[in-house]
């Protein structure tokens, strides 16, 4: 499923006199199969944008289609399709563990499955819950009967994630999934997202603050500033125009900073991952000597 967004605008106070736009005239396409970053400073519209993707925020102005679903379609049949869309576009909010509520881990993960498959048998649900927990690296037998409040922070976040992927969404959207995780928790979450990216979940869309992570993990990214999508492309394209990024209040990845500072005597043609940066730098050193 491809996400196509044309001239999308949104205001939280549409009827006020001097209304402010949280999104303004956003046009962009996210292809099926992308591992797509959404970046921009705080308040630039990232969360507002992603909440449009499963209809949580209704389209006010402009056009938005996700696969065959037209989110601008306000007719009765359009609304009926919204539920179908919500199953296909899984949304993991910021600090999702703050929203766990059930008495057991099993019930928390099962919530979405029960909601989307009303007539499902107990076996069907158990099987979905079990495979989701396995995918995110949680021990089913050990944890299923525990209270979600008695487990560690990193595990809680995985429980929340398992609940979303249990219905096997084709597009997985995550709002700052690494916030608050310790370094190892962060590394293993990125690994997990890449693993999921190879399964039913064809497209991953992830909001991140950390340009080092975006350079390292994403194929493509869009940059938001003041509600506008001001740049979109691969890390190679985005981080080559660093001055522009910094004007938008964004910090560059360290590899980008160094590439810039080595100019003009040394020019590196890198994709800004640490490995590639090191390769290209060592090449240049050999050329020189």
């Amino acid at each position, binding site marked *: 499923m491809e996400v196509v967004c044309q001239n999308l605008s949104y205001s939280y106070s549409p009827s006020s006199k001097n209304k402010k736009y949280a999104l303004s005239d956003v046009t962009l396409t996210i292809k099926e199969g992308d591992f797509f970053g959404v970046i921009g400073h705080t308040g630039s519209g990232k969360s507002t944008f992603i909440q449009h993707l499963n209809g949580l925020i209704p389209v006010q102005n402009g056009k938005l289609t996700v696969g065959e679903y037209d989110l601008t379609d306000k007719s009765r049949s359009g609304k009926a399709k919204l539920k179908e869309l919500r199953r296909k576009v899984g949304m993991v909010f910021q600090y999702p563990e*703050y929203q766990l509520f059930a008495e057991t881990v099993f019930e928390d993960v099962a919530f979405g499955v029960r909601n989307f498959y009303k007539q499902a048998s107990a076996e069907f649900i158990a099987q979905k819950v079990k495979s989701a927990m396995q995918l995110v690296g949680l021990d089913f037998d050990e944890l299923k009967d525990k209270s979600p409040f008695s487990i560690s922070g990193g595990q809680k976040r995985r429980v929340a994630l398992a609940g979303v992927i249990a219905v096997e969404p084709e597009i997985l959207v995550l709002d700052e999934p690494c916030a608050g995780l*310790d370094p190892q*928790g962060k590394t293993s979450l990125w690994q997990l997202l890449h693993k999921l990216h190879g399964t039913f979940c064809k497209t991953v869309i992830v909001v991140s*603050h950390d340009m080092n992570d975006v350079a390292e993990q994403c194929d493509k990214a869009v940059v938001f500033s003041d509600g506008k999508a001001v740049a979109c492309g691969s890390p190679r394209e985005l981080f080559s125009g660093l001055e522009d990024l910094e004007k938008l209040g964004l910090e560059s990845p*360290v590899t980008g900073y*160094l590439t810039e500072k080595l100019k003009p005597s*040394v020019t590196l043609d890198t994709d800004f991952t640490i490995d590639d940066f090191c390769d290209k*730098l*060592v090449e240049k050193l050999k050329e*020189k000597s």
Partner: protein
Amino acid sequence: MQAVKVDKVSYKYSEKEKLAVDGVSLEIEAGEFVAVVGRNASGKSTLARMINGLIAPLSGEITVFGNNTLDEKSLFEIRKTCGIVFQNPDNQMVASIVEDDVAFGPENIGVSREEIGKRIDFALQATGTEPFRTEMASKLSGGQKQRVAIAGVLALKPKILILDESTSMLDPIGRAEVMAVVENLRKTENMTVMVITHYMDEVVGCDKVFVMADGKLLKTGTPEQIFNDKELLDEAGLELPVPAKIAEGLKRRGVDVGLPLTKEQLKERLWKLFAKT
């Protein structure tokens, strides 16, 4: 002068659980900038709550500018001296309007009305929350709430400031802004600062690092000492700051630039490398 002394302190939340903090001893001098790092659940927040007197050690003792946290009569003084900002700002907010929330702390410790006004102005300015002054705190974004929570504690003018993962929802530039304000207060007011953080780039600039694992204090050292100790990093689940990761990558390719912890240091070393050849 000694700001904090933690002496063989242990704590557990309930009888059947294991120790959350296990035999920790450490000292912090007035005006020092220290970092506490370690995995989730390694005991960092529990230690911070004990320093602030919110919970009492099970064994051992803690003094804050000479006041023992076990001494009921000193508790008010200790909480006035030592301000904590928690990770989840929703646990910190008390009033619905931003400026009332910031005023709450100073009102509570008996600051005069005129002085409170000044402190609110200062704290809102310092944290960049002036534009939301009269707004509902509940309508703000996570990052904005965190700034308000920090403003609330700055308005107390604490001699010791503890930031417990309190910038986790800010973007890197927002984090840098807040840290610059804190650094400035440390210089001008000799404020003692303790940051609990998962961001290795915040650790790099501090005087002393405390590394925790499983409730125990594994090591105390300078950032250089900590990041040069591979075994320790593994044991405590830490990682190198990005510039040091790049230096490691270069080393694996036969280019040795040492272990620079900041991007500026790494840049200097790369310049030298190319100047030489």
